[in-house]
């Protein structure tokens, strides 16, 4: 049962990290164009040289 004292805070912390990451993504407007962002990765314009 002693492990609970460590495991519960750890699980809460990890969950909290996930929540913080979600809120950050939300605030930096990464959910504004989900469809476009999904397709942008298929663009082959910079396949052969890096974007200047």
């Amino acid at each position, binding site marked *: *049962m002693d492990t*609970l004292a460590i495991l*519960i805070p750890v*699980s*809460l912390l990890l*969950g*909290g990290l*996930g*929540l*913080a*990451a*979600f*809120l*950050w993504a*939300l*605030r*930096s*407007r990464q*959910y*504004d*164009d*989900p*469809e*476009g962002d999904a*397709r*942008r990765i*298929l*663009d082959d*314009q910079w396949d052969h040289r890096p974007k200047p």
Partner: protein
Amino acid sequence: MSLADGPLPSACPACVALPATEALAESRRRAAAAGLVLSVPGLKDAAGMALAERTLAALPGVTAARVNLTLKRIGVTASPDITPQHLTEALSRVGILALELDPALLSTRESERRGRDLLMRLGVAGFSMMNIMLLSVAVWSGAEAATRDLFHWISAMIALPTLAFAGQPFFASALASLRARRLGMDVPISLALILSSAISLYETIRGGEHAYFDAAVSLCFFLLIGRYLDFRSRAAARSAAEELAALEVPRAVRLADGREQLVPIADILPGDLVLVRPGARMPVDGVVAEGASELDRSLLTGETLPVAVAAGAATSAGEMNLTGPLTVRVTAAGRESSLHRMADLVAIAESARNRYMSLADRMARRYSPAVHLLALASFVGWMIHSGGDVRLAVNVAAAVLIITCPCALALAVPSVVTAASGRLFRKGLLIKDGTALERLAEVDTVVFDKTGTLTLGAPVAAELDAHRPGDLEIAAALAAASSHPLARALAEAIAARGLLPAPVSDLRERPGYGVEGLWQGRRVRLGRAAWLGAEAGAETATWLAVDGQAPVEFRFIDRIRPGARDAVAALTAAGLRVRLMSGDARAPVAALAADLGIADWQAEMLPADKAAAITAETAGGHRVLMVGDGLNDTVALAAAHVSISPASALDAARVASDIVLLGQDLAPIADARRIAVTARRRIKQNFALSLGYNAVAVPVALIGLATPLIAALAMSTSSLTVTLNALRLK
């Protein structure tokens, strides 16, 4: 914009760590917001997106262009001398249809903020739900005494702040409906949230066995999903309406002190002089003060033949000026113009339709009182049965509230509507009204307009084989000198036959009449029949006269819109009655009806006739879908059970219709009906599914056997089934 509102909350440590990036992104956003916005309805894939962005970025003066594929818009940052026309022309050269939007009308900020707010509450509720569920699994699998109490306490510490934060939308709306002395769906929801967390806290303090923290939080989570989906489809409908309003950027050229000024229509007053160039739409009602031209009234009346006007003729807003520049003295602008007076008629017709009650509302109206009564009955029943054990009775009542709470019901409609409108949007249909899909599913009669709806409203030269090549060459040379739609269509058709224009000199356009020039020393003219001394026929035509020869007639036909044949065939095959109502003359309407296989057609109808015909259909027990584009259709569009107009339609027509077709193709109309019927069936199935779960779980709760485990299982399985059922929509 939430970032500008105040200091960053500590919940977002990453934002605090990255202030520079945020500030940069923010300034970029501001710049983009001040830039130009284009609508690109046809953009679908990565290739098109990259092409559009590269094309625009390559233009001199354009600093940045970014596509938002979800909204099908492009935001462009450019120097002030770049006009939207530059951009749309550049895009049309690479085959992308782009339309200008008025950024001032796109007030998406507020709704964006509300959407992010809901999503944030959803995230917090999801986080808490997962953590509490983990702890609950331990309790369900037999944690006892001190361990169970500890887990309950930790759950309480996570659940209570979460409910206070994430439950706010429900509490606020429940309070509002209580103030209005109504019992909305949010009252039982709020009651369930508050009652269950209160009783759980009490049980936790007493070291009791059952705590419903997990149920309360997951209830909140599922309901927020429903709320968010609902919000999304509403926001999409609203932004569609805004986008359409923004499509028509209303400006007029005012002549003041001999100078031309481009001003918004709202600033035009009666008595002002307004210049209307060829190819432009009349912005106001007025009287021609100077100039002669032809006007295309097809959008207003459905006539395909242009009308000649000269000084003293009355014009109304919405007509297209074809040949010569006109100076118009304004008699009525803005709210008083004939276009806006039509809006009043529309408002009257629409008020009848607004009484339509959606399936979800009908369900909520019946369901909500039943939930309250059931919970109250279980409380009273257990009070009597147990001889006054308040704790037990409240426990059972809370369990009943949680289990009956319309989790799946709240998801039943929004999940289907979101799936269906997403599908329709991909086919190029914008849903402007939330209940449009349901109404579309009930339709049994379809009424089409002709000009601009079943046809493109653009003329094509016909029977060119009947003419001598020499005449065609002269006609090509003359037609190329004019921007009149008939002349342009003729020049295009002759060029397509590989004929070169004859050498004609001294080309001169005579506004309102035609074009003249000199060919081999002889005067040649192309234009109106009356000008050339010929007898005008019933069909759209232009005439060519070479001095010393009899005038030759060039006939035009209106091209059928792509997909019109398929749409009519598919609708007929689906068992719907298809009718054609047009304001145009009998001959062209009959020809088109025969061509498309529409047996039931009427010609020469006035706007009031169309509306009356639709009202008669409705009175006869039919549900009518009206498809139309002109001002003469507007009242009919509003009077119909549900209406569709193409994006090329006049502003007023688009405002009056529920669904707007973005592309040129009409075929999606048949798909739309099919999808609407399926969506309606899915909604009903979802209602049945969630009521079925209740029928099983409620008796268990009523006899006091409901445990938090049963509540959690019933809630999540029913919500999942309902959502998966919605996603089956094809």
